[in-house]
């Protein structure tokens, strides 16, 4: 008689080695497991809610894959891409360039779990995680490859992480650090728990919804399919958190607090502008802040509190950042558009501006006044004054521009000197992250560090653009050809006529 799954499942997923000719510590070094200070038998309590067998996994994944490909093939035949708003296409190009290879990095992280995680159940689940992430990489590459005939920018799905483009360097710095450079415990708490359970909802649920509203069924479908996997393998975070909280709660709190801030900054760069500026106005469902408050504050943080974690010490500053950081990034992205491999939508027409002021009551005072000068220059024909002539100063932790975490009113130097080198930070929070493990971050070099170190030649902006791999066919520009600014000129003239 065949055994049922219940008969064999517990044994199969908890199968472990009894070592006879090697020390367990040599087979599972704590540098890789991250289990230092945690008793070996503590990991027996590691449980996850997804009781998935390999047979079931393959069957379900096959169905998902067939569904995505059927939709994708039908839409390609229908030529739906040509109907999409340019600003929405820009969001998909940004996503594919910055995220596709992160999926591949996650394959390596999950592979490490398969080999070095301190619990056999976790190692078993890691197999499904690495297969998930392989699928996500392949899906994203397939999606982008099919769109290459429309726009070579989709080539950056594969190419981006082989360049020095600044946003890629910043994202790579984060994901290298929390996925590839971290032991299993830290990688799990930072990536599965914080990034995937907390933040990937923003990218894969919110953007999927916006994409569907914008008519991009293909991309929406892809994002939603990926999210079903993320929701499952993100669950590795909770049992890991439970074990670490029982034996080293201070470490768990520190890892999550650092990861939460660093993840929030990278998503503020990626998803914030896409939701608040790139999505066509009539298709927007929620602002970035509203989505963050619902998914991160109301859901993710509440779950973490159930496990005994406190809110990060910087919570008030994080909330303040939700009112400002993505607007700072948006202005920066637009102004520095030649440094991007996607076109960028300004998103500040009169109607869009009214929406921004409704969602963010301080927007006009903090950001509108800066856009006004940009608009004056566009309408006066001074496009050269809407373009950069040097690099922004960058944060030694997030590698993002100083000034893009809070508002300009709060902008002040946050710095320290270590071994004769000045490190600047985008906030007191990033400085605190650095101070937790200065030896970890001190050697990281931002684009500015590389610039003044002589790696970029000639030492000017064109030299930097070439170094970043930006060629004229992909270099970013305004998605609307600056037409959005004309209504301001018309209104100015009308006002002058009345006067």
């Amino acid at each position, binding site marked *: 008689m065949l055994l049922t799954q219940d008969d064999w499942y517990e044994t199969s997923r908890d199968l472990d080695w009894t070592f006879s000719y090697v020390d367990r510590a040599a087979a599972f070094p704590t540098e890789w497991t991250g289990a230092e200070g945690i008793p070996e038998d503590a990991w027996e309590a590691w449980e996850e809610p997804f009781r998935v067998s390999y047979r079931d996994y393959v069957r379900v994944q096959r169905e998902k894959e067939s569904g995505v490909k059927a939709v994708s093939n039908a839409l390609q035949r229908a030529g739906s891409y040509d109907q999409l708003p340019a600003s929405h296409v820009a969001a998909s190009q940004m996503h594919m360039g910055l995220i596709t290879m992160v999926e591949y990095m996650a394959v390596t992280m999950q592979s490490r779990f398969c080999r070095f995680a301190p619990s056999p159940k976790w190692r078993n689940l890691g197999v499904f995680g690495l297969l998930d992430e392989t699928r996500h990489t392949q899906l994203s590459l397939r999606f982008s490859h099919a769109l290459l005939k429309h726009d070579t920018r989709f080539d950056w799905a594969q190419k981006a992480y082989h360049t020095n483009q600044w946003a890629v360097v910043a994202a790579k710095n984060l994901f290298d650090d929390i996925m590839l450079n971290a032991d299993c415990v830290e990688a799990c708490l930072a990536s599965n728990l914080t990034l995937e359970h907390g933040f990937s909802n923003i990218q894969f649920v919110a953007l999927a919804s916006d994409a569907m509203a914008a008519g991009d069924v293909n991309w929406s479908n892809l994002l939603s399919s990926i999210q079903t996997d993320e929701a499952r393998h993100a669950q590795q975070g909770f049992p890991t958190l439970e074990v670490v909280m029982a034996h080293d709660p201070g470490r768990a709190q520190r890892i999550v607090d650092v990861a939460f801030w660093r993840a929030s900054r990278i998503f503020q760069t990626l998803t914030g502008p896409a939701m608040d500026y790139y999505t066509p106005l009539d298709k927007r469902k929620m602002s970035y802040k509203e989505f963050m408050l619902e998914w991160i504050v109301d859901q993710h943080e509440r779950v973490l509190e159930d496990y005994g974690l406190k809110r990060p010490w910087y919570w008030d500053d994080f909330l303040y950042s939700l009112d400002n950081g993505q607007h700072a990034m948006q202005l920066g992205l637009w102004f520095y558009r030649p440094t991007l491999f996607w076109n960028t939508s300004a998103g500040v027409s009169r109607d869009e501006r009214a929406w921004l002021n409704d969602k963010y009551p301080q927007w006009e005072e903090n950001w509108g006044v800066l856009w006004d000068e940009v608009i004056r220059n566009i309408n006066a024909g001074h496009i050269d004054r809407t373009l950069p002539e040097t690099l922004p100063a960058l944060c030694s932790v997030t590698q993002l521009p*100083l000034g893009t975490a809070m508002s300009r009113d709060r902008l002040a*130097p946050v710095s320290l000197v270590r071994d004769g080198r000045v490190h600047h930070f985008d906030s007191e929070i990033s400085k605190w992250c650095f101070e937790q493990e200065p030896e970890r971050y001190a050697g990281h070099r931002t684009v500015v560090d590389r610039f003044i170190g002589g790696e970029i030649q000639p030492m000017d902006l064109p030299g930097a653009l070439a170094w970043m791999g930006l060629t004229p066919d992909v270099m970013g520009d305004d998605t609307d050809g600056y037409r959005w600014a004309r209504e301001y000129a018309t209104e100015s003239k009308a006002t002058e006529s009345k006067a």
Partner: protein
Amino acid sequence: MALFPIVGRLVGDFIPHLVAVDTDDTMDTVARKVAVHSVGRRVAAPPGVPSYDVYLGDRRLDPSVKLGELSLLPLQWLDVRIRD
């Protein structure tokens, strides 16, 4: 004289910039080199010819002092304010 990188912020703008200055530059020159990246780009130019003050922390620097006299580290943050 030598090329020297500083972080320069025009107070009122939202980001500071990497600015290449010279150790022989006076603060007046440093101010102009910082301001050019912000004034008339995102921060409206004041009427007439603008003049500026340079601050190291809370300390206003003498406009005639040269950068090389300040013993700064590379990437020191300097604030530039439009003079009222």
